[in-house]
């Protein structure tokens, strides 16, 4: 039976609920590996960071699926490096089944880079975009 996106969504959900780190499924003509990322899902604002700390914050996926940098109807990605974005701005989508789950910027700032590639499989907590918070960007 072919593995479709709805199966992947269900599996990912079960992995997260039961605390399983990863699963690999092989069929005669397809294979699937799901890895649950355990990175910080809501990075702390960098306003109070010391000079040695990485000043960036990271937007992460909150569901498992395929990453899309832009809406399929549109040619331009949601955001581009160097762009100023507000807290809560959409930096990309995770497509799972018929759902487009937004990946949101945790802080206002300048987009440093989009870390995921369109079409790539991402998991819960996968870093999607790196943002330099505005307070940090202004003080340097």
């Amino acid at each position, binding site marked *: 039976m072919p593995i479709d996106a*709805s199966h992947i*969504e*269900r599996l990912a*959900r079960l992995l*997260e*609920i039961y605390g399983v780190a990863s699963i690999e499924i092989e069929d005669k003509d397809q294979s699937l590996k799901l890895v649950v990322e355990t990175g910080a899902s809501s990075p702390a604002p960098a306003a109070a960071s010391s000079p040695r700390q990485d000043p960036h914050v990271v937007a992460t996926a*909150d*569901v498992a699926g395929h990453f899309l940098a832009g*809406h*399929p*109807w*549109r040619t331009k990605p*949601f955001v581009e490096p160097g762009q100023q974005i*507000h807290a*809560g*701005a*959409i930096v990309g*989508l995770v*497509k*799972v*089944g*018929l*759902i*487009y*789950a*937004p990946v*949101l910027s945790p802080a206002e700032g300048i987009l440093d880079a989009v870390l995921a590639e369109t079409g790539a499989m991402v998991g819960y907590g996968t870093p999607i975009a790196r943002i330099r918070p505005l307070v940090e960007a202004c003080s340097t």
Partner: protein
Amino acid sequence: MIEILSVLGPTSVQDLGRFDQYRFGVGTSGAMDDVALRAGNILLANDENAAGIEIPMTPFKLRFCRNMAFALTGAEVEAEIGGRTIPPWWRSQARAGDTLSLKAMPRGARCYLTVSGGIDVPAVLGSRSTQFRGEFGGLHGRPLQPGDMLPCAAPDPPAGIGELGIEPADIVLARPNAVADDITVRVVIAGEYDAFDGATQKLFWRSSWKITPQSNRYGYRLQGPAVKPASPIEKRSHGIVPGVIQIPPNGQPIIQMRDAQTSGGYPKIATVIRADLWRVGQARLGSRLRFEQTAYPDALAAETDISAYLDRLRTNVRLLEELRRCR
């Protein structure tokens, strides 16, 4: 409440339609793209028949008078609220005082705004849809105007209802078009098909039909080669439904749409199947249609495809909400 600030063209309140009044000569009205209206309501966990606003032209602007969740489905629009851009086929939150602006419509012909709980105008003859001809339903039976205040049944949005998008119907239900830029719709032959000779029937199937500016919620007037019956047909008026393709004396087809009269006398060559009528509803003025003959069982099977899409949407949205609640 929602306040309409600016509007262009016949914007109206529509639900899925009024289906029990045919015997009184009252047509269905209802959303021209019922799939988009249902999808918006699914995103908001509304009854799928909840009324929304059908917006056929931009610019369009409204103000939310209280906090509520809303969704935009149907045609692609460039939408902004409170400095945020809203992607197509999307659910979001409005705060009291927020202004939603729809600036351009690069794809499709009608956008649907649905709100949590639905637009709460009174139901008339079993539906909230605007019946333009009879001037009832919707808001006072007429197109929306600046200054109109629309009541909403929206409860305060539950905390769990966050930003979310869904895959547009025309990606999931895409069909191969015989010619690029022409929209192919499936039709079944209708009562007077055999009154057209073989060459004329071929002409009907082979032609690309341009949607003229004289097209609206009542019907789409098409332009192409003249398609005329072998001998003039004079029929008494008889029942017709949205989707029927009539051939008036000039040989230029008319597709009856959601605000069509319930009866007519022009010969009927074919009928657009219900599962493709939403595609016609999203076809823009000046674009082209082609007709593909299909059999009745296949027309029914096509409805199953739409049901399957909507079922998957319901399941997927529910699963994602559950997933987010698990965290």
